[in-house]
């Protein structure tokens, strides 16, 4: 034990506080980096030595630089973000489509149906009138046009959702690859005894990002790597530094994409996504929006059947030719006027009676007939039901989205509270470590002075 030991303690302390300032600097610099967890220097007393029968301290050491990280919170955030991703994707698509069915502020299919039967009402008052017959044809045309417009909008939405799958799975694959690469680096750094805090932060951030796109479960391994599994079916996506991938194949039946997963080193298998953005896209494409299209097709088909059934029971303007089908096509996209001349409108219900209106009257009464939903609803009530349903779907998805955002915000706040950088705190540390550094330097200069005194004795 001698003066050189004091110098050594001073030197160690200087090094230690320099590193502490570096860590503080890193924290300050990353105050706004997404996913960054603040780090701290854990100090410990250096190995003690025995001198002159006494145990004497040997200064300070850095035991480790650790990051503030709450594994439980990370799990919760991953799960909450999957739900948020699902609900947000759903609500944004449904809100876009809602406008197609917004019959509250603008006239839509319901009004077109009403106007169509209104034209038949006018025809009952003058079954012989060319203008009234023309109005029936025009209103019929508007009705079919409206059917086409609605079905085109729905089909476009379905098709664009299907296209979205390309970019979505590409993005998921990129994230998976990055997670696997970072896992590799973390493992390597660990083997070399290095500090992989920043890489872990990046990897954890990627896992959170991934969780908005698909539902995942993950396990943290002792070597610092994280294995990721797909929540829908449990396929492995990342195992250590090995990575699986998502791929798309066209379904011959529907013409839409099927989603497949290839686990690391495994065989490709079909999956049914139900969580995250990917799940929302599939659910909207195959169930929710397809449901609206089915409803529109039902309406068009029943309209086709019922109107044609009455129309073919009547007589054309000449009073002798039997009425033909009024509509052709049995889907919302395919329904069209089957007749084009005013003389083909079958208003008369009695052969030879040109001015008879009984068939037109029958047609007007169809509007109030319970034709839809197994004889429980009128055309208009059915359409109201569809509008109300999409309203309800949007409303509930918006509510779910708001709830999810509040929840993830709360979780982010908790994460920020634990792992976020506080500038005030870092500034305090900055001053603290600076003072300690100054004191350590003073220790070195004092020891040097003492050394000079000792050397002066020799002279």
């Amino acid at each position: 034990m001698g003066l050189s030991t004091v110098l050594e303690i001073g030197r160690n302390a200087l090094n230690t506080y320099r590193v502490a300032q570096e860590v503080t600097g890193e924290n300050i610099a990353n105050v706004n980096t997404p996913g960054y967890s603040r780090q701290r220097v854990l100090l410990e007393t250096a190995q003690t030595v025995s001198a002159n029968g006494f145990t004497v301290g040997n200064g300070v050491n850095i035991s480790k630089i650790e990051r503030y990280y709450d594994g439980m919170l990370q799990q919760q955030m991953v799960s909450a973000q999957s739900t948020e991703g699902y609900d947000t994707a759903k609500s944004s698509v449904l809100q876009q489509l809602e406008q197609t069915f917004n019959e509250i502020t603008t006239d839509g299919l319901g009004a077109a149906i009403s106007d169509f039967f209104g034209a038949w009402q006018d025809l009952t008052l003058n079954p012989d009138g060319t203008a009234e017959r023309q109005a029936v044809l025009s209103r019929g045309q508007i009705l079919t046009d409206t059917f086409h417009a609605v079905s085109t909008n729905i089909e476009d939405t379905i098709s664009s959702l299907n296209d979205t799958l390309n970019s979505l799975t590409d993005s998921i694959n990129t994230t998976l690859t990055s997670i696997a690469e970072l896992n590799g680096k973390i493992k390597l750094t660990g083997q070399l005894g290095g500090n992989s805090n920043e890489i872990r932060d990046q990897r954890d951030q990627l896992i959170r990002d991934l969780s908005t796109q698909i539902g995942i479960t993950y396990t943290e391994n002792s070597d610092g790597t994280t294995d990721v599994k797909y929540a829908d079916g449990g396929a492995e996506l990342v195992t250590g530094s090995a990575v699986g991938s998502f791929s798309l194949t066209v379904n011959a039946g529907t013409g839409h994409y099927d989603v497949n997963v290839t686990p690391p080193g495994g065989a490709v298998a079909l999956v049914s996504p139900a969580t995250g953005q990917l799940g929302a896209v599939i659910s909207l494409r195959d169930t929710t929006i397809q449901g609206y299209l089915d409803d529109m097709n039902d309406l068009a088909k029943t309209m086709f059947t019922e109107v044609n059934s009455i129309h073919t029971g009547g007589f054309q303007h000449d009073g002798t030719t039997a009425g033909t089908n009024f509509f052709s096509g049995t889907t919302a996209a395919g329904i069209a006027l089957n007749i084009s001349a005013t003389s083909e409108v079958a208003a008369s219900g009695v052969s030879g009676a040109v001015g008879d209106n009984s068939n037109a009257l029958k047609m007007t009464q169809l509007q109030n007939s319970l034709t839809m939903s197994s004889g429980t609803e009128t055309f208009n009530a059915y359409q109201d039901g569809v509008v109300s349903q999409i309203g309800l779907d949007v409303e509930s998805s918006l509510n779910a989205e708001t709830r999810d955002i509040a929840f993830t915000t709360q979780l982010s706040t908790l994460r920020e509270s634990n792992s976020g950088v506080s500038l005030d705190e870092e500034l305090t540390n900055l001053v603290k470590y600076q003072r300690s550094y100054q004191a350590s330097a003073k220790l070195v200069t004092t020891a040097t002075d003492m050394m000079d005194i000792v050397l002066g004795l020799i002279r």
Partner: protein
Amino acid sequence: MRVTSNMSNDNSIYNIQQSQSKLYKTNELIGTQRNISRPSDDSVNSKLLLDIGYKLKANDQYLSNIAKSDTWQHVTSDTLTAMSDIMTLAKEQVATITSGSSDATIRQNVVTQLQTLKQQMVDMGNMQLGDQYIFGGAKNSVKPFSITSPYYSGDETAINIEVGKENTQQINIEGNRLLTADTALSQPYGSTNVLKAFDDLITAVNANDVTAIVAGAQALEAGAKQINNAQSDVAGRLVRLDATTKIIENNRNTLETIYTNIQYVDNAKLAVELNQQQIAYEATLSATAKISKLSLLDYI
């Protein structure tokens, strides 16, 4: 709880967003004056509003049908009044000769009068509204009445229209039931062939056949009654149309009240809410500005 400046920032942004979003909604309500601008604003009431909208539209259609039927009934009523007047004139002419007359000139005079009145009767029977013969049934291509037998070439089709949901009303009077009732399948007004009665009378007067003249006078009387019966029918229809119009208008008022209550905003309530939201928003902005200025950096 440990609080960092980023937490304060995030919190501020979240709260500002919340306030902004409330202001946006209130602004939309005031701007549109509607509670429901899209189905998701209130999906249950959306259905109700749409339903009321269709009912109002249907009511408008019924009112339009009633207005047209009303015109038809008035034209029919006026024509029937004219027919009734013709019958009165005919009866007066016949009254002058019920005991016959040996003076051929007097008889000829009566015959000429009766022929003119019959022609007028036929003309009235061929009355048109637009291009529809009001007494022709479903036949519109030819005049329903002619001066010679067979007098009627229309048909006996009833033209019904809707004046309410599942509520139809006949708008026409079938010509044969009115003037040639002996040939009609149904005889609600009487069974007299008015035009034949004219012809029989003309023959009787020409022949100075007193028995036939008396019989003819009785037939004319029956014919006049038949026309009066038809007038009563039309009057009844007009009353019914009037009553139906009132029901529909009452119904419309009720529906419009419900619609207004659901759809149109309460401006006083919105003004108060807007004020509250504005205060909350200003407070949020002020708090954010004050908190974000604070830093230890300013003191070391």
